[in-house]
């Protein structure tokens, strides 16, 4: 078993991995940038080491520094989480060279699946269905232009190295191509340290269906069924669920087997996700392998009863898979909502600042993977994901109702978040009907305006504000008396407590 794990990440996913380490009795080491001294992962890990200034390129993307730190603290392994170095084959290679276990796929497989162009070629050869698109990296703009014409507009720009929507742009005509390419390349560079992008046919209103796979170091491969991640904004998922409403058992089995084939021909090990686009006619196309733990992994955990981070660590420790394909069974329905620090009323503009108050959603079947706390600062430097709410229930309808309630119970004051917006998504009749496509937000929420708030709630907000003002006035008058009351435990029996009227 691994002896000590350094977690080369931050936020909710670092916290998630620390929890798994604690449960497995493995010491965890947090690394942090200067902007993250007060972050939750720093407080929860057994050890914490500052690895540089706030910009990710100088800290969370600083491979040399991270590997050196692993040696210094005696960590025999690194969990990269998602984003940052998670899918960086160079980093995996350096870990291998330095005899540090990279908790993820081997660097060769990572290089292959990370190179979207080469992996498309591999899959095409293996008979896996793929989306029409570029077969290689463009030399110059002219080549992009001619490729785009060949594929036919609309085309999609995608980062070779990336995932998670970073660097992705839809281009509707040749006029837009240049500026979109530039923006996409800049974003790709900033997110992954690699500016290469490629083009592919843009499939309209598809569903995004992916299969979770686990592969040990001995060639055993299982899939843990699908996740549907069609609800997206800025090409980035915000709601995920499993099972998908679009699959029947036959299609599910076919796609699952295809996913395992993709993992096999890639020589892939550890946890990975095979992404497909599913078009209106239920044709599916291989998109890419997400060679990491996914943001949305919890919905798979909730329905299959498997802990994917535990499994990642076990596989990296050289254990064999503890189950066969037949033993993995889906139960009930699970939905995840991603809580971003963004303002849905202002085109999802990021919102950094201080979280004045956080109220966690709780209750049966509600899980909250969270990287923030009351009083923390959300810095401008990193991805705006704050937390995830995951619900499980016996069926999809109950899961929706549970999610709506969980989002109602969830309060973040001080910064803008997607909480209320997500509630409107889940409550939408088209969502309830299962009509989820990647155009969902565009189709139903494009003209998202600050909705008029019901008069009753407005009135209550006014009453509460007036009460606070009144209270402040009176506190000032009797400050000392109040102070004592606020901090005193119930050491004296008295007043109404003893059965008398208030």
């Amino acid at each position, binding site marked *: 078993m691994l002896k000590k794990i350094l977690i080369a990440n931050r936020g909710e996913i670092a916290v998630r991995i620390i929890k798994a380490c604690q449960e497995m009795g493995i010491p965890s080491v947090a690394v942090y940038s200067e902007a993250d001294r007060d972050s939750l992962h720093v407080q929860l890990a057994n050890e914490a080491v500052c690895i540089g200034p706030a910009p990710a390129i100088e800290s969370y993307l600083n491979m040399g520094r991270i590997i050196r730190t692993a040696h210094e603290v005696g960590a025999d392994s690194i969990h990269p989480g998602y984003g940052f170095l998670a899918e960086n084959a160079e980093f995996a290679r350096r870990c291998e060279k330095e005899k540090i276990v990279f908790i993820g796929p081997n660097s060769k497989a990572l290089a292959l699946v990370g190179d979207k162009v080469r992996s498309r070629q591999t899959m095409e050869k293996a008979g896996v269905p793929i989306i029409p698109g570029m077969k290689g990296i463009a030399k110059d703009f002219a080549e992009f232009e001619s490729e785009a014409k060949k594929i036919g507009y609309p085309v999609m720009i995608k980062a070779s190295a990336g995932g998670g929507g970073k660097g992705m742009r839809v281009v509707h005509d040749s006029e837009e191509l240049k500026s979109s390419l530039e923006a996409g390349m800049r974003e790709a560079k900033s997110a992954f340290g690699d500016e290469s992008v490629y083009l592919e046919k843009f499939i309209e209103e598809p569903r995004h269906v992916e299969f979770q796979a686990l592969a040990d170091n001995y060639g055993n491969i299982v899939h843990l069924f699908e996740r549907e991640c069609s609800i997206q904004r800025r090409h980035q998922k915000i709601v995920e669920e499993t099972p998908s409403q679009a699959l029947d058992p036959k299609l599910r089995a076919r796609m699952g087997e295809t996913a395992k084939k993709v993992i096999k021909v890639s020589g892939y090990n550890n946890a990975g996700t095979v992404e497909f686009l599913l078009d209106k006619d239920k044709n599916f196309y291989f998109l890419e392998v997400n060679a990491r733990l996914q943001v949305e992994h919890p919905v798979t955990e909730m329905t299959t009863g498997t802990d994917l981070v535990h499994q990642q660590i076990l596989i990296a420790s050289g254990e064999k898979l503890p189950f066969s394909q037949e033993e993995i069974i889906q139960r009930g329905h699970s939905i995840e909502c991603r809580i971003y620090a963004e303002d849905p009323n202002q085109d999802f503009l990021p919102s*950094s600042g201080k979280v004045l108050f956080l109220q966690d959603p709780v209750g049966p079947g509600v899980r909250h993977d969270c990287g923030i706390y009351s009083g923390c600062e959300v810095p401008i430097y990193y991805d705006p994901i704050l937390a995830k709410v995951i619900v499980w229930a016996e069926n999809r309808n109950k899961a929706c109702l549970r999610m709506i309630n969980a989002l109602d119970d969830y309060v973040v004051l001080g910064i803008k978040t997607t909480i209320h917006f997500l509630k409107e998504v889940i409550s939408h009749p088209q969502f309830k009907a299962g009509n989820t496509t990647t155009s969902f937000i565009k189709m139903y929420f494009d003209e998202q305006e600050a909705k008029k708030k019901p008069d009753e709630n407005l009135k*209550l907000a*006014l*009453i*509460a504000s007036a009460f606070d003002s009144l209270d402040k006035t009176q506190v000032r008058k009797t400050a000392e008396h109040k102070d004592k009351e606020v901090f005193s435990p119930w050491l004296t029996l008295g007043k109404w407590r003893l059965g008398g009227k208030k």
Partner: protein
Amino acid sequence: MEFEFLIDNALHKISLEKKENTFVVSDGEKTYEADIRFISPNIISIIIEGRSYRVYFARDREKRFLSLEGQQFTVQEPLEGGESLQKDEIRSREDELMVKAPMPGKVIKIDVSEKEEVRKNQTLAVVEAMKMENEIKSTIEGYVKKIFVSAGELVDSEKPLIELELKSKE
């Protein structure tokens, strides 16, 4: 006591009086009793005619943030003498000409230069925060009067980036 608050730039009035252990609320339409308490520094519990409400609450300088039933309110005290509303109108006209950073972030590039003519919806600058690039677009037809920042600079929210002038001014 009478209170005035601004919510979404609209002025609202409410009256609250303490009466023994409850409060009397007058909202202009009705007068009723309310049982109101701070349950903890960030939670106010209100019971009105048997209906129970839990209001989440945080204060930050002159702003109050409230949330109930999943809805958020930002409540401010009005500036003296109802000035605020008028001010807001002026400000919104000014805002069109003074292009400001919509959030704290980093200026990635400036797409225009001083004196340049700009169309409506033309991209003026790109600001990045939390890994997302945001294009700052012109809301008017006119000219670039002054540029206050350069690429690579870190800017705070509301920081003036570019000043425009209207075409009609010529």
